[in-house]
């Protein structure tokens, strides 16, 4: 074993406890103090159920869309040299840098029925679940691009050439050789984009319309309960979100570990 293991592990645990486990434990403990009957009552509230379904469903959908288009963007940025490539590359990070409220207001203005885009399309985008989806795609985009890009640029050019000499056409090469190699990075990007989307609040509330049972996200519900000084309900919803998120992330991580193991580390 490398020297310093005790110190390194000790510090890691200390830091993890201080920054993540302690606040989360407080949430869980607070919820537990409500008693089983009250928790069950909150959990079976259809408004909360619908909000959770909306949050998780749209977050998964947005992460999936980002996985596809983020991959395309990363591909374009690594494989082609074109004027303005550096600008595009930098622009990818903008959703990171922008205050989320600004993003939300801007998106709402564009996608509102009288906005640039909203006035062209025949259906409503802003103030519907579709608007939430747009906002979640926006804020999640950088994650997939930034996780896939380095792997793609390090990809051995020989792999694609080998496939070609063996008779594989371009499409076969991409689907059977390139994509499987990118899977772990793509899954990491997907998980990050998903996690960000689930917790997103600032940009969504401006474009969602926040109609109960229709376009109300779970984080908004938590804020509303807090403003009513109903801390019990707020933490109960938070605990449910926490559990669901952890389950999804654990699942993605396991799939990723499995695909990474297949690829091997050293080689």
């Amino acid at each position, binding site marked *: 074993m490398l020297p310093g293991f005790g110190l390194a592990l000790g510090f890691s645990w200390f830091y993890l406890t201080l920054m993540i486990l302690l606040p989360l434990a407080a949430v869980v403990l607070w919820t537990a103090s409500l008693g089983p009957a009250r928790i069950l009552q909150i959990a079976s509230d259809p408004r909360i159920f619908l909000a959770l379904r909306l949050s998780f469903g749209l977050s998964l959908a947005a992460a999936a869309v980002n996985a596809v288009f983020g991959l395309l963007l990363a591909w374009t940025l690594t494989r082609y040299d074109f004027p303005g490539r550096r600008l595009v590359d930098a622009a990818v990070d903008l959703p990171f840098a922008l205050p989320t409220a600004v993003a939300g207001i801007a998106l709402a203005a564009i996608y509102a029925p009288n906005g640039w885009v909203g006035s062209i399309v025949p259906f409503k985008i802003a103030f519907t679940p579709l608007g939430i989806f747009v906002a979640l795609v926006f804020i999640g985009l950088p994650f997939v691009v930034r996780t896939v890009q380095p792997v793609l640029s390090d990809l051995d050019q*020989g792999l694609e*050439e080998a496939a070609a000499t063996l*008779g*594989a056409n371009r499409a076969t090469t991409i689907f059977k050789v390139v994509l499987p190699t990118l899977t772990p990075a793509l899954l990491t990007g997907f998980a990050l984009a998903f996690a960000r989307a689930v917790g997103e609040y600032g940009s969504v509330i401006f474009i969602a319309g926040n109609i109960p049972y229709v376009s109300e996200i779970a984080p908004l519900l938590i804020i509303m309960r807090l403003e009513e000084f109903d801390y019990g309900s707020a933490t109960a919803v938070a605990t449910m979100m926490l559990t669901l998120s952890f389950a999804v992330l654990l699942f993605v991580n396991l799939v990723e570990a499995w695909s990474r193991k297949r690829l091997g580390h050293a080689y």
Partner: protein
Amino acid sequence: MDLKIRHVRKDYGVFPALNDVSLDIRSGELVALLGPSGSGKTTLLRAIAGLETIDDGEILFGDEDAVGWSVQERNVGFVFQHYALFRHMKVFDNIAFGLRVRDRSRRPAEADIRKKVTGLLELVQLPDLANRYPAQLSGGQRQRVALARALAIEPQLLLLDEPFGALDAQVRKDLRRWLRQIHDETGHTTVFVTHDQEEALELADRVAVLHKGKLQQVGTPDDIYDRPATPFVYSFIGDSSSLPIHVRKGEALLDQTVIPVGSVSGPDGEARLHIRPQDISLQAVGQGVQGRIALLRRNGAFRRADIEIGADRTLIEAQIPPHLEVSEGDQVGIHFERFAIYPSGSRQSI
């Protein structure tokens, strides 16, 4: 299949990577492309495979010009220096890849693929590793798998780009002999690129030496070593020294003194005499060319001496028997047993 390369040219910016290269390779031959880095050897190999376009010339597969063919259409087996194995596939699936991606009409039945891959695993002596992933193999094993994968498509040509370049010395030696065996068993027309002259001379039927995009010489290992066609080949293959001399009326002159080597051919004027360490013998002072031993050191079974010759004290390297009683600083006479003289300033000089 015969491979004919005719007047191939490839430009990279200002310098030609390949400058009017012509080379005929006969069916079943094992040919080495040898040269220092930047000589164009890998570019030529990749051009044959279709991985690189050429600006001019013809590449004939049999009697057909293959220049317009895609990589896929050329049906060549290509082995990469860094193996380029598909990491997410087991060894078996790597080897089967080329068969499985074929059109339905040309794709063998799965049972036939299984038989073929099993046979290839036997051929490359890895019958037990079918279910491993490439990450679980050693470098030598990976390169064997890469070769099996290339052979699976029954290529018209087998091309290897520095196949042993990433392996350590002992594995290189073993794989070299083994590749020769495989070649003799399967009879594929094979071209491999190397910068290692020992590898080229030991393995190949014929060696093509490239330098700065120009083909210097093509010949058997004996031709290349014993009868170098250009000063570059002389100095690149094996150890050698060169000495500036003057040629006048069939005589070789060093500082106005005739070198007693008999008559030499070639035009009058400045020239360089190239000589290998083992082609120099020492004589008593006063006989042959006069020199002084500047440095003496042990080198395996022999000793190597750096000998200063002429007014400008050019150093030439000589191999001398260990029992010969000489020491550093001694004056000696030198006899050139075998040598080559190339005129200076000729286009073929280095």
